[in-house]
């Protein structure tokens, strides 16, 4: 009884406040945008400056897995969803099956499919509906210290075998130096490497969920890194932590398995190294160009979005307009999902962020974005899935079986988890 009274009182208050917020009928429609992606505020400012009928209120939320997604679940459940929000690719299937985001096929967005790499579109279009417009992508590339490579007489490797040989040569020339700092507790990186190797972890093609992590491609990748770690050729440590930053500054960690967004991180953490980085395609297994994806986000409409039409207009602008790409370039080096904007992105980013000048990032990233395998799929709860993957692979260093065994254990975790959650699972 009391609950009902309080609920009624609360809804009256809510109505009153909504009424105040919306203002008169002829003012611009105000919509709310939730994201933590760097440069969002700049994008919103630009949109608001160029649009009269829609004004966007940007709300910074914690990074998805550090609380942002909780906040979205929470808000959708409370009936107070924002109009539009960013979701990362791995979370898309979970957000769809759990009714957190809504289909946007009715807005005729299928015409836009050709603007994006096939894999990115397929990760936003699930089942028979489209659930979002890709905003940015994160094809894997290799950042390397061009100055030190020259000093040691090294060439950027094109295959993983060459990469190992380079690491060995480097240690002969400078025993203190390692070819890279490799964070095993980085689920996004580990899965992007499996993706690049040609693995296909999750599979929905049979109409039920399947998961495989001991396929030859994955195993080749994990055994390779287990070997590099065991032989002391790489520093197995968290990236961007103090030790890593010191190693970068001291020139004892020479490459970075990275994505375009890493450039902004480097400019922030090691500004002194401006002009000393080169970018090359990530080494591959067979010498054919092939990348994985390591980040990126999708513009989505949460269930209960109060102004879906206006939200959609904003989402479309963010995802397709060179203006949006340019606005974000002062804060972020995330690569546009819309590959047709790559050149605009390159020009804007080099102008706004001198750090990336001379890296050849645009061309390498564009090539890499188009070389990602479209068959890769994500599971139904990757927030938890990545967390568990971090736990498993983070503990893998130095333990018997290494990454290879960790992924097998993670496979069992996930199958059990999916069954417990009530998903239909085969194998």
């Amino acid at each position, binding site marked *: 009884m009391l609950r009902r009274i309080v609920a009624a009182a*609360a809804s009256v208050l809510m109505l009153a406040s909504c009424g105040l917020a919306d203002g008169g009928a002829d003012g611009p429609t105000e919509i709310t945008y939730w994201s933590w992606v760097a440069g969002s505020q700049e994008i919103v400012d630009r949109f608001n400056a160029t649009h009269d009928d829609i004004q966007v209120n940007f709300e*910074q939320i914690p990074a998805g897995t550090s609380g942002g997604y909780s906040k979205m679940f929470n808000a959708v459940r*409370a009936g107070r969803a924002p109009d539009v929000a960013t979701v990362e690719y791995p979370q898309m299937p979970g957000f769809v099956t759990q009714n957190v985001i809504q289909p946007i096929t009715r807005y005729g967005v299928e015409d836009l499919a050709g603007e994006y790499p096939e894999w990115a579109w397929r990760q936003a279009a699930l089942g028979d509906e489209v659930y979002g417009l890709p905003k940015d992508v994160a094809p894997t590339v290799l950042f390397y210290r061009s100055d030190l490579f020259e000093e040691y007489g090294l060439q950027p490797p094109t295959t993983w075998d060459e990469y190992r040989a380079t690491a060995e040569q480097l240690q002969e020339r400078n025993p203190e130096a390692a070819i890279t700092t490799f964070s095993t507790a980085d689920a996004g990186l580990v899965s992007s490497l499996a993706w690049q190797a040609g693995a296909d972890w999750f599979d929905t093609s049979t109409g039920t969920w399947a998961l495989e992590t001991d396929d030859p491609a994955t195993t080749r990748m994990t055994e390779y890194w287990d070997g590099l770690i065991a032989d002391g050729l790489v520093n197995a440590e968290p990236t961007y932590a103090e030790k890593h930053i010191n190693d970068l500054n001291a020139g004892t960690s020479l490459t970075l398995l990275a994505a375009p967004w890493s450039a902004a991180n480097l400019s922030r953490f090691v500004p002194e190294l401006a002009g000393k980085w080169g970018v090359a395609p990530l080494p591959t297994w067979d010498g054919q160009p092939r990348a994985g994806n390591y980040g990126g986000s999708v513009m989505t409409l949460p269930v209960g979005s109060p102004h879906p039409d206006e939200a959609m207009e904003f989402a479309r602008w963010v995802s397709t307009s060179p203006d949006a790409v340019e606005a974000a370039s002062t804060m972020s080096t995330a690569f546009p999902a819309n590959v047709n904007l790559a050149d605009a992105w390159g020009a804007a980013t080099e102008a706004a962020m001198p750090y990336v000048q001379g890296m050849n990032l645009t061309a390498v990233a564009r090539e890499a974005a188009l070389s990602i395998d479209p068959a890769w799929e994500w599971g139904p709860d990757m927030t938890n899935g990545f967390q568990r993957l971090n736990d498993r692979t983070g503990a893998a260093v130095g333990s018997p079986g290494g990454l290879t065994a960790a992924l097998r254990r993670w496979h069992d975790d996930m199958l059990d988890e999916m069954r417990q959650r009530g998903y239909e699972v085969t194998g």
Partner: protein
Amino acid sequence: MTDVLTPERPAPPTPRESRPEQHGSAWWLRRSTATILCAIAAIYTLMPLVWLVFGVTKTLPELYSANGFSPSAGFHVFDNIADLFRQDDGIFARWILNTAGYALGGAAIATLLSVAAGYAFDKFQFPGREKWYAVVIAGVLIPHTAIVVPLYLMMSEAQMTDTYWSVLIPVMVNPFGVYLARAYSSGAIPDELLEAARLDGASELRTFFSVGLRLMGPGALTIFLFQFIAIWNNFFLPLVMITDNDLFTIGQGLFTWSSADGQNPDYTRMVVVGSAVATIPLILLFIPLQRRWRAGLTEGGIR
């Protein structure tokens, strides 16, 4: 009895403390050992607070520079505080107001309800009284965090989450306050006074307000302070209930900033300064109130 009930226990030296003695070297040894032990505890207690106070004087690079227990080379307190209140359109001031609102409003109502309930448990005979009381005490023993997630699920079903009420209503209930209030009532309100008021024809509710509440004032203050601190310190409830930045508490806001420091390292400075701004005035405010609070505990019969 009256001695225990005096709100502020006078602290003149009691006989057992002030016996004139000849202090031998053994006495001095024990005295210095005891004092040094306390001093170590005091240094340990103050260390993080000192770090925090020095942190407020520093720029971001200085926070990461070598010595945490020394002030900044320059003096950046005013810049830092100004930046804090400018960050994200000055939302920090709003968080302070919210937290104060939750804590003051929640504690005031919780105190009134607890005192009324404790008084009723003490002064009235009614069927099942001890059973009802046992239910309340069971509430003391359930961990708050075990209640909050179910409470969230229930309130979200009624679409009540993410409102001021979703934080305020749960903190208006304090079973431990009822326990304290029952003890205060039994100690502080002579039944004869109630009888007198009743004979004058006052209604029960009026008697409560005119006699009960007045006599239980010091105890009520203790319950209020208890609950005020509990709400001010509560992180889990708002974290679960609130998603709207405008309704955040200080703690939640600082948590959001601290988890965003990967994108913007300057949030680390904002979190340090914000923590200090949220803490230090409260400490200064509470030092004079602390003795009164302790006296209230004595009356509550926790001994």
